[in-house]
């Protein structure tokens, strides 16, 4: 534990704005968006965290500020330790952080996926396109305001659409989480069906935001 704690201390000496982050397992730090590349480079070059295992993001829900946190996990192939680097995106409406694809070539796809799912822009990314969803898809599915049932969307190929009239339709289903809300007395409101995202006469179909 002492060897890993030393990394945070060393980081804080070099970058005073770095703060330790609460974590149940590995060492973790919070880094301001402006310094993230310098911190990652320091960790890679001076602390032998040479393997970027993962880049992802967390959406802390609409209305929460900061809303988006980008999380990097680094691993050292020599010391065999992990470190978690978290960056809060400064702007909740148009979240953006600098791209780490100049440091690790593998960051390219991870950042494309994070952009695809959360709409977080990675500044300086060579090719920031969608990766799992198709090009031109209008939503960011892993955002908390995106309903589990999905949103009706036209298909990407105009020719197919003209010919068939097909579109990606939302799944009419009971919305998640499929779990009873704890501590509620009123069972109708507590049970999973209360979060129904399907539509009927009483409830309109969710439309595009």
């Amino acid at each position, binding site marked *: 534990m002492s060897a890993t704690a030393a990394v945070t201390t060393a980081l804080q000496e070099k970058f005073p704005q770095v703060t330790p982050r*609460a*974590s*149940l*397992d*590995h060492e*973790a730090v919070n880094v301001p968006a402006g310094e993230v590349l310098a911190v990652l480079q320091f960790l890679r070059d001076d602390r032998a965290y*040479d*393997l*970027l*295992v*993962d880049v*992802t993001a*967390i*959406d802390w829900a609409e209305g929460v500020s900061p809303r988006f946190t980008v*999380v990097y*996990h680094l*691993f050292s*192939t020599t010391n*065999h330790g*992990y470190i*978690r680097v978290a960056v809060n995106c400064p702007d909740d409406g148009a979240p953006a952080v600098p791209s780490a694809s100049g440091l*690790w*070539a*593998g960051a*390219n*796809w*991870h950042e494309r*996926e994070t952009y695809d*799912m959360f709409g977080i822009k990675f500044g300086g990314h060579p090719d920031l396109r*969608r*990766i*799992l*969803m*198709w090009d031109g898809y209008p939503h960011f*599915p*892993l955002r908390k305001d*995106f309903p*589990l049932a999905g949103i009706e969307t036209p298909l990407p190929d105009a020719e197919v659409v003209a010919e068939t009239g097909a579109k990606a339709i939302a799944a009419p289903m009971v*919305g*998640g*989480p*499929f*779990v*009873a809300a*704890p501590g509620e007395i009123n069972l109708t409101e507590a*049970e999973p069906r209360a979060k129904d995202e399907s539509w009927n006469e009483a409830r309109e179909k969710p439309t595009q935001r």
Partner: protein
Amino acid sequence: MATEFSFPDTAAVAEFETEKMSLSMGPSHPSTHGVLRLQFELDGEIVTKCDPVIGYLHRGDEKIAENMTYNQFVPYTDRLDYLAPLANNMAYAIAVEKLAKLEVPARCQAIRVLTAEMARISAHLLGLGAFGIDTGAWTVFMYSFTEREKLYKLFEELTGARFTTSYSRIGGLQRDVPEGWTGRVNAFCDQFLPILEEILGLLTRNKIFMDRTVGVGTISKADAIAYGLTGPNLRGSGVGLDLRKDKPYSGYEQYEFDIPVGTKGDSYDRYLVRGEEMRQSVRIIKQVIAKFPDGPWYATDARKIFAPSKDKILTSMEELIQNFMLVTEGPQMPPGEVYFEAENPKGALGFYVVSKGGGVPWRLKIRAPSFCNLSILPKLCVGSMVSDVVAILGSLDFVMGECDR
């Protein structure tokens, strides 16, 4: 013919420019192993640009995970790398157990290691068979699938399912091993080793196979690390990183096994690494069975996480309430975040769990090894022939179910 053919002089050839051709390989192409599409730009038969198009199998597993309890997500992990569901179940279970600060007993750990290594053999056998077909060796596939079938029989006996096992549960297992099962696993290993030698013997010194793979798709050590490759693909490039050794979990530190490492990083090395890993897996399985621990096979103190046994639910009030709470509200987890990676057949499968407390994860990120392993394709394929791309894909041994999630 009236005029004789003569080669044009070289100066004229240099000026002769061919048009670049664009070629789409996949999404349903036998050698893309699933629904992967490669968008090539070709100069003759040389690949000048390769753009992998993924996402055809995207199911939104991470979104689904945010909308159900931790226990309910276990079957979804089967469908990530569907060639080694037992290993996925285990990785997910350990990640959530880390969040709950839960220790599982030695017997549970041993069974998990045993099943994970069996899954590794099964996954590598399929990888090998498919690689063989890609490079023109059909026979390997027939042999390796015969062996896989035997493994599936054992899985079926253990879990009730051949394919989607959902065996590891958070805090334990679905059930204990059946009577005499470990003996049958042992017997499988005994007969498997000579057959494995026979299967590998069909490829290792096979002239055609070597012509297709030696020096094809070479990944340097630096590139392998820069692209975040893990598993046999990383070790094939000479980086001896194996989480079972370097970051032991589930009691892997008790077992003796070697980590095969390649020297050149080409497709042939990746094949050799997989072959050797199967031998090492058999070694581990033998050791697990030799010192198979007794005792409980689930964490007995995890009453708010692990479902009580059915006979107790039907007879005891306390257990009935417990089961009801588990089903309706889910296992109650403390707030916090954990990241756990397990050494799966395809590489390091990671789960990043962010909890705000309660029975549902706030965010569950799946770090899929196949996704990272494929990200090197745009670099790896450039400059090779289209037919070599087939060999490269076979040697990377990826699963789209995991890549697209």
